[in-house]
């Protein structure tokens, strides 16, 4: 990763090529499609947060029927995501990979992502993949909003010199 950074500044739009992105994206879609075709379930990744909280919290919001009813398969879905990525790591990555992004950015950013995805009814997979795939106006608005704000935030963070 680090040795790539100087190359990225040259303005090449796809410094790592397009194929891994396209292949990865198609597989993300296939994963969602397999579940949908077999079960009719439109799987998003972020409802897992609330539904899993229902195991440990008495807050009524987390114990609504739709969360309690779906919490078991959402655990399985998430375990699938973790192990799918682990399969990739074993086959193609050669050992574990760790981020250089600082812990406070991960914690603080994660917190805001947790608030935002639940308030906004979905995340990059729920709205961005399944909602956009459903041609839902709500999802288009949500995705346009979070993309624009995320770009602004990332540029700002970079501009004030926070790296990595």
């Amino acid at each position, binding site marked *: 990763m680090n040795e790539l950074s100087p190359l990225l500044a040259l303005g090449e739009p796809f410094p790592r090529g397009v194929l891994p*992105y*396209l292949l990865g*994206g198609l*597989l993300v879609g296939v994963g969602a499609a397999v579940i949908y075709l077999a079960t009719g379930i439109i*799987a998003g990744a972020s409802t897992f947060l609330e539904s899993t909280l229902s195991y440990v919290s008495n807050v009524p919001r987390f114990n609504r029927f739709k969360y309690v009813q779906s919490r078991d398969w959402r655990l399985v879905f998430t375990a699938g995501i973790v192990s799918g*990525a682990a399969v*990739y790591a074993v086959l193609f990555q050669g050992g574990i990979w760790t981020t250089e992004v600082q812990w406070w950015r991960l914690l603080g950013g994660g917190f805001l992502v*947790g608030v935002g*995805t639940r308030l906004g009814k979905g995340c990059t*997979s729920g709205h961005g993949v399944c909602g956009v795939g459903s041609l839902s106006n709500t999802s288009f608005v949500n995705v346009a909003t979070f993309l624009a704000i995320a770009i602004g935030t990332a540029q700002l963070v970079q501009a004030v010199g926070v790296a990595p």
Partner: protein
Amino acid sequence: MSSTRRSQLFMPIIYVGGLIFGFGLAISGMARPEVVLDFLQFEDFGLLFVMGGAAVVTGVTFAVATRYLDRAPLTASEYTRRVKAFDRNVVIGGTIFGVGWGLSGICPGAAYASVGIGNYPILWAVVGMFLGAYAQGYWRALRSSTTDDVTETASS
């Protein structure tokens, strides 16, 4: 109740779907916050192909299933689209999500996949997401109990 109608294959297929989903996220690089941040900083536009490629596959699948297929074999559920009601929270939530995504380079699915590629520092983000989800749920529960049921029915 509904679990009694579930096929034996229900959990295995959910797992397999998640497996493909996570494998795809790992190949795409989204499990690495650096790749996401490069995209947001206009240094690598590859992520457009991740979201675009995935949305095309789900779009075609949803269109075909809702038009031509009857019911899902494992649950007997009808095929539907993911259409959620629009309200102010969609924009407010998207804004907060955007700040978090731009700060950390992490979103929920990608964070789980990141755990899978051995990125243990990502647990900071996972903990953060749970705390954030808890905070908003706690706050909304508190708010709806102090402002009667009127706002709750209006917003849900």
